[in-house]
């Protein structure tokens, strides 16, 4: 039993004990973890684009984006990149983990209302986008036309395949454009990098907001393309990644200039990024 009589509810640095209630294999190196409190509730109420600090007791903790949320759970899709994520990938449902959060500013959901939305994602970058895509589909009438452009290295590296090929394509006034860097024998979709596909699809900037998440190099090229296409830098939103420890703007780790990515970020518009020193 959990003997838990301390003030950690008010101590933001002490994790809440939670349970991984389900593990879904997305790709060979990415899994989605469904997380609930020990009594089957939602650990906290995140806004789309916010982050969670997830720990395995005895191994360590790291910051991940929250991919989705339901009545009684949050989901985080996590790619295997280091020691902690290796350990996470080896756990099975029922295991207890530590969770603290939610952290960060999240996407400016009110500011997006009334606009057409273009989501541009690469690789695991669809994980943070998915929280916002789900939010906009759940509140469909608040948003205009929705385009989702997503790419990965190969067909097997595409995450959230059910959403990409089933759930989202069925939504009203929603188009999903999928591309892969390299096709396999059965792939009959587009082949090419995300920035190139973005140029090819030639989206019109009028009344449209763009949200871009993915590897830094993809973000860079997509941003340049979007600016060329005539998008205002205030209308292009992206997320930054920095190493994080505390998540609450104290430990000093994640600063770019005077901003702390864990607190003031991870979501910024391109015009806000222009005001930050180039140290990403």
């Amino acid at each position, binding site marked *: 039993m959990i003997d*838990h009589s301390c003030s950690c509810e008010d101590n933001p*640095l002490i994790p809440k004990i939670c349970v991984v209630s389900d593990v879904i294999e997305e790709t060979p190196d990415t899994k989605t973890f469904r997380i609930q409190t020990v009594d089957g509730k939602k650990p906290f109420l995140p806004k789309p684009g916010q982050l969670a600090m997830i720990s395995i007791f005895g191994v360590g903790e790291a910051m991940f984006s929250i991919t989705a949320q339901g009545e009684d759970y949050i989901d985080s899709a996590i790619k295997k990149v280091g020691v902690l994520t290796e350990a996470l990938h080896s756990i099975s449902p029922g295991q207890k983990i530590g969770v603290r959060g939610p952290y960060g500013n999240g996407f400016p959901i009110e500011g997006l209302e009334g606009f057409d939305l273009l989501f541009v994602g690469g690789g695991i970058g669809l994980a943070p986008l998915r929280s916002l895509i789900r939010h906009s589909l759940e509140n469909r009438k608040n948003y205009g036309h929705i385009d989702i452009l997503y790419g990965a290295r190969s067909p097997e590296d595409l995450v959230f395949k059910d959403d990409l090929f089933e759930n989202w394509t069925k939504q009203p006034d929603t188009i999903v454009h999928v591309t892969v860097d390299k096709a396999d024998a059965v792939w009959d979709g587009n082949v090419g990098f995300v920035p190139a596909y973005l140029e090819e699809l030639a989206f019109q900037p009028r009344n449209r907001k763009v949200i871009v998440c993915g590897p830094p190099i993809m973000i860079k090229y997509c941003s340049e393309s979007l600016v060329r296409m005539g998008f205002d830098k205030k209308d292009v939103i992206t997320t930054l990644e920095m190493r994080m420890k505390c998540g609450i703007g*104290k430990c000093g780790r994640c600063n770019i200039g*005077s901003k702390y990515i864990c607190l003031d970020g991870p979501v910024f518009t391109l015009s806000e990024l222009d005001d930050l020193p180039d140290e990403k």
Partner: protein
Amino acid sequence: MKLLKKDLKEALRLISDDFELLLPGEGSGVSRFALWDGGDIDLSYGNTQLPPKDILFPHTEKMYSFKCATDVEVTEEAEAKSRIVFGIRPCDMRAIECMDKVFLEKGFTDSFYSRKREHTLFIAMGCTNPCRTCFCDSMGLTPGDAPAADILLVESDDSFEVKAQTQRGKEIAECFGRLLTDGKVQVSKVSCALKTKMSDDLPEKLSGMFEHPIWDEVGRACIGCATCTYVCPTCYCFDISLDNHGSEGVSFRCWDSCMFSDYTRMAGGHNPRPTKKERVRNRYMHKLSYFNERYGSALCVGCGRCVEKCPANLDITEFIDKVAEVRL
């Protein structure tokens, strides 16, 4: 009110039942704040070699312990001793104000810090004899004054003027009772040993110098030892880590330094500050520009410790002067 120097020990004794007293002293060959043993009080320390930041922000601090054999159990340490820090200098007192901003403001309160802070009082001592590398008056401080302290002591040859500056300070002063006599102490204005060309518009100027060649120069000289951040009274970066034996362990935090190459390295290997140039730039920028932007004051209080201790002779006062000379 005045307190004769010869009565100081007696005065401290009067409050030592209710408070732990921390005084400047010598320990393992360095001067630092340490628990008072009731012995003689040495007031000859200027600012201690190690800053008093560890009183509120220990070098290593346990956050919680866990057991994970069959189930996870998290227990947190409770800690709340009432303490008085005696003899803290104005620069270090200002540094505590900077730490307060970091740990107590901007959305989240750091409970580990705030619990200690609430139970810690400060009796500061104005400087009459500045150390050879301090430059606090260039950084907007007054060597004889420590406005954030609960009590300020102004030193003369044979006595202190005792200025209670907060309600808690008044209560402490009342404990000194009959040892206090009426009167004031006359002191002449003290001025710091080092001067810099620090100015109100330097933080803003620096923020426009991110790509300036000045960083190549300072980056080359630095050897990345992190002495500067270790001895700095305002450097507050920390790491979170754990120590476990079998299924039991503790999670702790400990001082870290932005001068280490691993500090910003991410799990995938990317490092946004790959060389000493970016790291020195971050430290100076944080001290002299970023913190001003975020919290409204500099994060350097002019204590001079890094100037004194850097093995590569990097000198923040020289850096400030160079920046002041730069034409943009």
